[in-house]
Every structure is written in C-alpha cells, then in structure tokens.
C-alpha cells in the first residue's frame, strides 16, 4: 500500500521522530561560546570540574560555528562586534539554538551608551535568557536544562529544511 500525505500534514511517525531526535539532540549539545567580557569567567567555572556542565552532555565547546549547535553569547556585545556575531550565527548549521548568557547579552546590562547593543535579541532569535551579572553557575545550569526541555518538546525535521526566519 502506498503511503501518501500532503507536506503540510504531520506524517504519522512525526511524534516518534520528535521524541527520538529531541532526546538525542538535547544530550549532545555542542556549544559555541562567543565570549566577549567578564561573564566568561563564570562560563569557565560552569565548564570546569566543580559545576561540570558535562553532566548535561554539553561539555565540549566547539570553536568552529560549523560544528556547533548552540551559540552561547557570553558578555557585552557592541555595535562593532554585532556584525561578527551575526556572521557567526549565520554560519551555524541547522538545527541551532541561541542562549543569551548574562544581563549584557540579554538587555545590554549596565551599559546603555553609544556603543553597546541593547540585547542580542535585536539581531538574532534568542531561545533562552540567563539573567544575572554575572549569573551564578546554578542559574546557567538551570538555563541549560530549560534549553534541553525546549529541545525535547519542539518539532524536529528528519530531513534538512530551509528555515523561513
């Protein structure tokens, strides 16, 4: 028997795909740390032994955007740097997520002046915001778990598809 469905319709096995791919992807997060300022210290302490981000499967930072699937924007982004940030984001392959780490990346933090971008969500889609200046490592892990929940519960395509946004 021929199975046929219209592309807009959900294929019958989509729920299983979502669950399986989501489970796989949430425990194999490869981060691209875009570290520009003081929050980087806190990122290092999360990544190293005591708090150990590796427990969540996000232990290996990749320093090439082509190999990463979560971009972690750690620190202040100014207008001059925003071009670089956007380029790095555009270079990452789907599926990709973005985390704004700290007050600066989320809303500009303590800086509101001629040079600072008031939150990276003005130039990129952001999936998780981690508040704090700098955030406690616990807050970072909490944000990471929120991201994992999101990855688990979202729709995943079995084949690559161009995103509209």
């Amino acid at each position, binding site marked *: 028997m021929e199975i046929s469905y219209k592309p807009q319709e959900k294929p019958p096995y989509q729920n299983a795909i979502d669950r399986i791919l989501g489970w796989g992807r949430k425990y194999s997060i490869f981060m691209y740390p875009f570290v520009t300022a003081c929050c980087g210290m806190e990122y290092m302490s999360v990544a190293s032994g005591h708090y150990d981000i590796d427990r969540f499967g996000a232990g290996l930072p990749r320093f090439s955007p082509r190999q990463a699937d979560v971009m972690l924007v750690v620190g202040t982004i100014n*207008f*001059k740097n*925003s071009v670089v940030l956007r380029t790095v984001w555009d270079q990452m392959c789907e599926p990709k997520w973005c985390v704004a780490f700290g007050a600066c990346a989320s809303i500009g933090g303590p800086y509101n*002046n*001629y040079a600072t971008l008031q939150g990276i969500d*003005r*130039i*990129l*889609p952001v999936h998780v915001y981690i508040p704090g200046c700098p955030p406690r490592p616990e807050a970072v892990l909490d944000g990471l778990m929120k991201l994992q929940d999101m990855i688990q519960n979202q729709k995943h395509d079995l084949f690559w598809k161009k995103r509209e946004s």
Partner: protein
Amino acid sequence: MTPEEIVGRLNEHFPQAGLDNRVDKDHAVTVAPVDRLEELFRELRDDSEFRFDLFMDITAVDWLERAPRFDVVYHLYSTVHNHRLRIKVMVSENKPVPSASGVWVVADPMEREVWDMYGIKFSGHPNLTRLLLYEEFKGHPLRKDYPYDKRQPILEETWPSRDQG
C-alpha cells in the same frame, strides 16, 4: 627631580615660550601654547635632565562653553629619573594640534583614540583614522554635545525591540 625642580628648569629652559608652569597637588603641570608644542616635546625627550622617554597617556577634556573648547592633556614619565610631567594645551574645535607621534611612536594610536572620541585633529599624524569605533560612525561620542541617547547601529535591528513595545 622633584616637581618644583622640574618647574624651575622649565622656566629656565623656555623663558619666552609662553609656558604657564606650576606645581599642582605635587605634580608638575605646564600649560603650553599650541605652536611651540613640537619643539617642547623634542626638548623634553632629549634633554639629559628631563629625559621624558615614556609617553604615558594623552587625553582630552571638553569644556563646552569655554572659548578654546578643548584641553588636550599629555602625561609624560621618565624611566631614567623617575619623574612626571603633565602638559595641557588649549585648542579650539578646528585648530589642529601638532602630532607627538614623530617624537614618541606610541602616541600614534593614542592620538587616533582622541580623534575618535573628541574629534581633535592632529597635524602630521601618519594615519588619523578611527581606532575604536567603526568607520560608519558619525560624530564623536565623548563630546559634551553628542546626544547621550543617540545610537548608530550597523545592523538593522529586526527583532521586536524592547523600546518599541
């Protein structure tokens, strides 16, 4: 030399140069006219008693309402004799200051920064372009009449921005 000795020697050395030498809070200060600056710099570096071989900093002050609008402030240090001198020059908006980069090479990037932030021109500078800000930037942000809330983003801010709603 103590600050008093520096001031005394400056008075001896440049009797008719129009310098206003004084000791201010245990620091030798001289207010110099713009046209004698080049000669003064060479003398301060090469004279065996002064030997100001380290050009520490150059910055500027914007006195918006005063007649020569800016103060350009130089800080010199001698690694040989362990003494310091501050030179102030009053300039108006359009008058260029002779560049110190022929005397001390490190003055080159510092003068570019002053040009970037205050828009003070340095005549004889090999490459007077912006140092910290981007080329598209209009105006000079540390001037007192630069609007404090003026933003000049490079990328178009497409994401719904916090300021609009």
